[in-house]
């Protein structure tokens, strides 16, 4: 017994160190799966009040830009409505089930926490499962890709940002239609990398890169960025640097896009794979 006590006294440093480091690592491995651990959630609840206040102030300062953007989007939508509705024509019958032909459902939300300077960035938005947000919904800033929802609480959701080493997205070149996979390399929040485009394709600087509908998360044709630099990666594929349309440092309002037919599609695909 005395030997044990002596031992403990002699090595008390190392023991305290190991215990605390153990706790830290336990937390690291458990909590890091998309930051969903309970502790983080509870404490986020507390810090969120502060964050929300800071965000409010920031939002106020950039109202002008936001207004401009909204006005732009408004006019684009108005144009579309104009094209679709033909008053007095009998081509269109009223339909009672309003979601009959609808595949995507849009919800707007505000960003209340965001980062661009880590290797794995996440975005918190102020809507959650009570507002109909579910995991695997897409996040855009109105026109361009921002991220994908990975977890929801009642009133908040956490989305994995495009600026995250774990984020993968099926993307294609608008000009030729060839698709590859888009990732972020962790270097610069303005640029991402498009891989798996074979080298016999003609790619030129400035080509638009957009989403495909393959993942059943993003609708087809959402903008991602512009081809900035084309390099041969040694194999038969290009390594294309894409300059992102979205400025992640000032994303404030996002559109959450849910695919109403996603489950149907995945279920069918599962039967044959």
């Amino acid at each position, binding site marked *: 017994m005395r030997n044990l006590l002596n031992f403990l006294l002699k090595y008390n440093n190392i023991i305290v160190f190991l215990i605390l480091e153990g706790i*830290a690592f336990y937390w690291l491995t458990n909590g890091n799966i998309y930051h969903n651990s309970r502790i983080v959630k509870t404490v986020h609840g507390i810090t969120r009040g502060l964050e929300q206040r800071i965000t409010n102030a920031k939002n106020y300062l950039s109202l002008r830009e936001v207004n401009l953007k909204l006005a732009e989007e408004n006019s684009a939508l108005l144009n579309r409505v104009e094209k679709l509705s033909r008053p007095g024509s009998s081509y269109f019958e009223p339909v009672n089930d309003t979601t009959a032909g609808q595949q995507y459902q849009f919800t707007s939300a505000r960003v209340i926490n965001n980062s661009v300077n880590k290797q794995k960035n996440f975005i918190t938005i102020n809507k959650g499962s009570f507002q109909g947000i579910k995991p695997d919904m897409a996040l855009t800033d109105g026109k361009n890709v921002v991220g994908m929802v990975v977890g929801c609480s009642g009133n908040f959701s956490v989305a994995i940002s495009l600026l995250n080493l774990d984020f993968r997205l099926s993307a294609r070149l608008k000009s030729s239609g060839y698709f590859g996979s888009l990732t972020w390399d962790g270097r610069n929040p303005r640029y991402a990398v498009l891989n798996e485009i074979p080298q016999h394709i003609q790619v030129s600087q400035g080509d638009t890169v957009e989403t495909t509908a393959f993942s059943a998360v993003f609708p087809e044709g959402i903008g991602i960025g512009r081809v900035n630099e084309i390099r041969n990666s040694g194999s038969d594929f290009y390594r294309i640097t894409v300059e992102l349309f979205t400025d992640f440092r000032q994303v404030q309002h996002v559109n959450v896009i849910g695919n109403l037919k996603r489950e149907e599609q995945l279920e069918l695909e599962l039967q044959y794979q």
Partner: protein
Amino acid sequence: MINTILKYGLITVVLILLQILVLNNIQFSGYVNPYVYIIIILLLPWLTPSWIVLIVAFFTGLLIDLAAGSPGMHASATLLAGFARPFVLRLIAPRDGYDPGSSLSMASYGFRWFLIYASAIVLIHHTTLFFIEVFRFADFFRTILRILLSSIFTLAFILLIEYYRKGR
């Protein structure tokens, strides 16, 4: 005694707030993220028992983690820095030893000593932190570059703070 504890408590709170509210928002080409809060571990008086250093280190890291939403990363890195502190101090002890009552600052032991001391601890902390953050050895040299650049910026901040304290 109480006075010293109060003083260090105040410094700790100010530094943590500085880290959370200002420095965590700095984005500088993706390579530079200064983590100045490590100075809390540097400045604890020489007489502090090492288990207290460890506990202070752990909770400082914990607070930064909670604010940054990065579970465990800062806690484990800061803890390792706190654990390494006595060894570093022993390695670079001045010729006539440490003065028991003194604080480990630039004012007490001079610029050269403090620079070596701070660089060692900051490098240990940043190396652990950045490797835990990426959690893979791919991109090894890029991580090293990030560690070096961030360490330089952190050191610059720490030296600034020390000069300010010395000047007063």
